[in-house]
């Protein structure tokens, strides 16, 4: 998480990446394993790069790659150092020039970019409610955290809800004072998938049984606009999650367990545009004490209880706002 900021702290790196390349960002965990044309193409790139053939200590292929559309790698690296990033990009552009300066005299007929049938089709809910999440530790009265990246850690994620689920958040009738509990599926998804402590890492999804309490109500504050098309809502609720995690630590080759939990108050406000059938504003805060640790959330040194904040806001319209939720391919994400 901290590495992201460091690697792109140099304006020159940003300029080069933006202007001289087609920049693409993807999660390499599924990418390096998926059995389809895109996975094959990524593996072709990665097997030319800095981690080519790597199996020790892990088989990760994460990093930065610069390459041609046909899969010829120009340069690759895995470093947070912006100087090394800049050097890598310049090397790639120099090699690109070598290619571009020469004609392909092969004379063979050019091939078309083959169709891509993803092994796992996108689950992006067109016309739905797309939220961007941020998670960060809130200020605490007594701070015993080490003064390193973990103290200032924060993380991002996305949450997806279908158009039907979004519409169902708005109470009926569309009159001030109307109130209702959000659909159980919406509350469940928020609780299990998006009230994880992902400030410092990528913890697993809460099991269904971890939900000890989950209530989230929407209430219409105001109906305004031409032909009463804007509906302003308040969102108010609470979710309590608790679980005794068990996992196998492969590095130590031992079974481990740890308890963790999150007792969150939720409050937010949103505006629904009836004419568009979509939210045009959405802000929701989940805040409260978290405690304990688990696998992959990097909290062994910070067991709490300590306050955690997760902020949900409306995602934008850039291509990057189609980034899938971290847990999108969990079989329960869109319901059982």
């Amino acid at each position, binding site marked *: 998480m901290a590495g992201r900021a460091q690697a792109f702290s140099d304006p020159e790196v940003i300029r080069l990446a933006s202007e001289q390349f087609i920049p693409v960002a993807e999660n390499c965990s599924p990418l390096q394993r998926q059995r389809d044309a895109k996975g094959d193409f990524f593996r072709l790139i990665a097997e*030319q790069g800095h981690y*080519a053939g790597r199996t*020790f200590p892990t088989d990760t292929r994460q990093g930065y790659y610069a390459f041609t559309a046909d899969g010829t790698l120009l340069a690759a690296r895995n470093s947070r150092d912006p100087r090394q990033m800049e050097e890598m990009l310049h090397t790639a552009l120099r090699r690109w020039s070598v290619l571009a300066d020469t004609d392909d005299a092969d004379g063979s007929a050019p091939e078309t970019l083959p169709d891509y049938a993803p092994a796992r089709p996108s689950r992006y809910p067109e016309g739905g409610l797309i939220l961007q999440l941020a998670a960060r530790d809130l200020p605490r009265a007594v701070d015993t955290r080490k003064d390193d990246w973990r103290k200032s850690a924060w993380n991002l994620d996305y949450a997806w809800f279908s158009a039907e689920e979004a519409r169902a958040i708005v109470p009926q009738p569309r009159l001030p004072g109307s109130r209702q509990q959000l659909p159980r599926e919406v509350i469940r998804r928020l609780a299990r998938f998006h009230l994880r402590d992902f400030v410092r890492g990528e913890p697993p999804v809460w099991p269904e049984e971890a939900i000890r309490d989950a209530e989230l109500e929407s209430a219409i504050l105001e109906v305004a606009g031409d032909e009463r098309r804007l509906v302003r809502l308040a969102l108010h609720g609470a979710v309590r999650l608790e679980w005794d995690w068990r996992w196998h630590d492969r590095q130590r080759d031992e079974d481990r367990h740890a308890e963790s939990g999150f007792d969150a108050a939720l409050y937010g406000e949103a505006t629904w545009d009836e004419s568009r059938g979509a939210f045009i504003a959405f802000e929701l805060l989940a805040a409260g004490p978290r405690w304990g640790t688990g696998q992959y959330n990097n909290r062994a040194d910070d067991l709490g209880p300590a306050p955690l904040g997760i902020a949900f806001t409306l995602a934008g319209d850039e291509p990057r706002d189609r980034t899938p939720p971290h847990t999108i391919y969990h079989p329960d994400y869109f319901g059982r």
Partner: protein
Amino acid sequence: MAAPLVDPSVLPQASRVILVRHARPRVNPARPAREWELSPEGRVAARRLTAVALFEHADGFYAGPEPKMSATLADVAAERGLLVQTDPSFAESHAEGWLDAATFLATVGRFITAPVRPAAAGWETAAEAAARFAAGIERLRPDHGPVVHPGHVNPGAFAVASGGRVLTAYLSWLLGHTTEQAFQTWRAMRMPDVAVVEFSPDVAPRLVIPFGLLASPGAASGGLRLPATGDAG
């Protein structure tokens, strides 16, 4: 001396060979093919290989004795401060005489389908060529061991430039290819072209990148194009 940070015995002992089919030669029917130099187009293609980051992994560059082979890798090796070392193990399969295109293709066909018989008078068999090539590879592999970086290990790697027939024969033998697979390798090969084979203890050799996959290595677009509006399919 400080103890190593990682027990060397746990480090993977894999190695890789970057196989390179030579760039396009200047055909001269008056001279044996083994004496042909690169054509102007071939020299340009050889220079384009300097743009291929794959070669950063190679800490040794080798080629068969034919000038077109070492010339294909000369620029790449020079960029890394190395020379191409010629090795007779990596010569193209021996062939005699000049054959017209149709006869040549038919002869290559017999070379592939009947690896233990000479495809024509004076031709080295595919089996003999593959054995010779393999012996050269096995002799060099111990000199190119795993590369240990802070935090990870890469297989050791070296590059070998040679001819299409012997490369086809070697890969077919190494990977246990059927005749059809051998033909696919031969047909997929461009000039130049690259493939990567990985060797690991107790595991069968693995073709990591086959010939033909990097299309025409060094072409900016690889010849890919977008379908124009109205194109069918």
